[in-house]
């Protein structure tokens, strides 16, 4: 069954979406969308560095994304520049640096479009193992960190005073994000990873009364988008990343259609 490239892509997409949904909820709650984008863009630099040193691609992307997030946190503490300026600088300079390095390495043949926008043909059995092995690890860590992470999201002050360690947890969360970016890169592409994190979470908001419900619904929405997008990608020969994002957008737009009061048990005001 796994010999069929499309089955592999489908399974990989489902695996990535199941992890990206719950993690994306925290990105939405903590208003870190641009932060996630910056980390994702640095993935291309990770690819270039891995190729240069003949290093494992997934580990290289993970390491560079994690380093960029640490650099951001340290630079933010200095407060010389505002956060969005810093993010803008790092986001685009890491992307540009990656592009320049990849282009300069004339001895490696590389599918740049596949890296930027994802490529369903590129999913190997090894990739599949990485998606599910890494995905299970990330989800397990997220469940383990759930309470302190959520408490720190609601109020760092309260979490700290009541003996949780919100800063340590936040750092662990950055590592999880770096891991998801490394895992998701093959399917969605560097440029579009953030949307797979954010759109399903934003879609789920309306159907959830608690954070836990929102995480589960976001995973479901993400899986739906991955399956729909990959089917579209196969049918119309479009790159897999944009197809999945378009599918997610369609689901998001459908979710905006007003429903009766019974469907809005979340209790939020319209």
């Amino acid at each position, binding site marked *: 069954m796994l010999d069929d490239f499309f089955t592999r892509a489908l399974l990989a997409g489902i695996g990535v979406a199941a992890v990206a949904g719950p993690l994306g909820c925290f990105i939405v709650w903590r208003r870190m969308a641009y932060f996630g984008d910056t980390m994702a863009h640095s993935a291309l630099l990770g690819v270039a560095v891995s190729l240069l040193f003949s290093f494992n691609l997934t580990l290289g992307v993970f390491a560079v994304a994690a380093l960029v997030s640490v650099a951001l946190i340290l630079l933010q503490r200095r407060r010389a520049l505002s956060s969005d300026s810093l993010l803008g600088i790092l986001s685009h300079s890491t992307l540009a640096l990656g592009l320049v390095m990849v282009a300069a390495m004339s001895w490696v043949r590389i599918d740049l479009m596949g890296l930027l926008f994802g490529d369903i043909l590129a999913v190997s059995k090894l990739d599949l193992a990485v998606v599910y092995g890494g995905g299970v690890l990330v989800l397990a860590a997220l469940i383990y960190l759930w309470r302190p992470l959520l408490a720190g999201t*609601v109020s760092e002050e309260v979490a700290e*005073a*009541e003996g949780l360690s919100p800063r340590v947890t936040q750092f662990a969360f950055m590592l999880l994000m770096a891991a998801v970016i490394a895992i998701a890169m093959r399917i969605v592409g560097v440029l579009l990873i953030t949307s797979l994190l954010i759109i399903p979470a934003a879609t789920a908001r309306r159907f959830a009364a608690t954070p836990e419900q929102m995480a589960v619904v976001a995973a479901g929405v993400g899986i739906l988008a991955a399956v729909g997008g990959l089917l579209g990608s196969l049918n119309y020969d479009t790159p897999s990343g944009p197809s999945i994002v378009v599918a997610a957008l369609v689901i998001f737009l459908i979710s905006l259609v007003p429903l009766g009061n019974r469907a809005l048990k979340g*209790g939020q005001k319209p």
Partner: protein
Amino acid sequence: MYKPFGKIADLHERPLTMLDTNRTAAPLVSLSGAGIFRNGRWLVRGVDMTIRPAEIVTLIGPNGSGKSTTARMATGILRPDEGTISRRAALRIGYVPQQLAIDRSLPLTVSRLMRLTGPAPRDNIRASLAAAGVAHLENAQVHDLSGGEFQRVLLARAIAQEPDLLVLDEPVQGVDFNGEVAMYELIGKIRDRVGCGVLLISHDLHVVMAATDTVICLNGHVCCSGSPENVAASEEYRSLFGARAAEAVAFYRHQHDHTHLPDGRVKHADGSITEHCHPEDGHHDHAHEDEARPERASGGGRA
């Protein structure tokens, strides 16, 4: 340590006993000559403070006087740069923040908020909400609460964790005057019933003074400390807050002798009418030494 929390709901039937603090019990937290040095200056220095079970200690002082810094030393967030701090082993702290802005993208029911930092049995949650007078809000979304309801829910959340020490950072922000009095009465009742120590931070002298056992008056150092009456009578306190502030204690010991008129003025027991009941508290910009905390200009809407 088990506390009979299930009965917290009948709090209101118990008489208020303000001054029966257990002066001999081992302290929950004890600071001795403690100070915090940041960016080339002492934020606060030479703080001696002891909080025992069932004791209400209030920190008062002007903006930037080191109240929050002192509280952060007591909760263990900050380690003193000089002096010593001793905290009872496995001290459970319940913290009520000044304000809390929860992003609307985060769906959160009141009952889920109650289990934010640790698990709490459903009975505890219900009893705590009932004690704070917001039992009916258990299933509401936090985004739909009014400011006063939300403050009560935050207080209930802190006590649902069965803390040994309750720390409240200006807990009456955004609550109207009557709510303010009720809030301090509630804190006193909770102390009586649960037996937890209470550390209150306030720049609002009046109501607090009547509901506390020990007052510590800060201005970068401890200006004066002791019972509310002694502090109010002291020279240091008068020079820090002005002579009128001293009258506040006597006044608020009999706080129910006035009514608030619809136009915002205050009618007193003797029939006189004034613009405010505590004029010096009318407007104050308020900034903390702790820059990480969201700033908030407040007080203008009160009383």
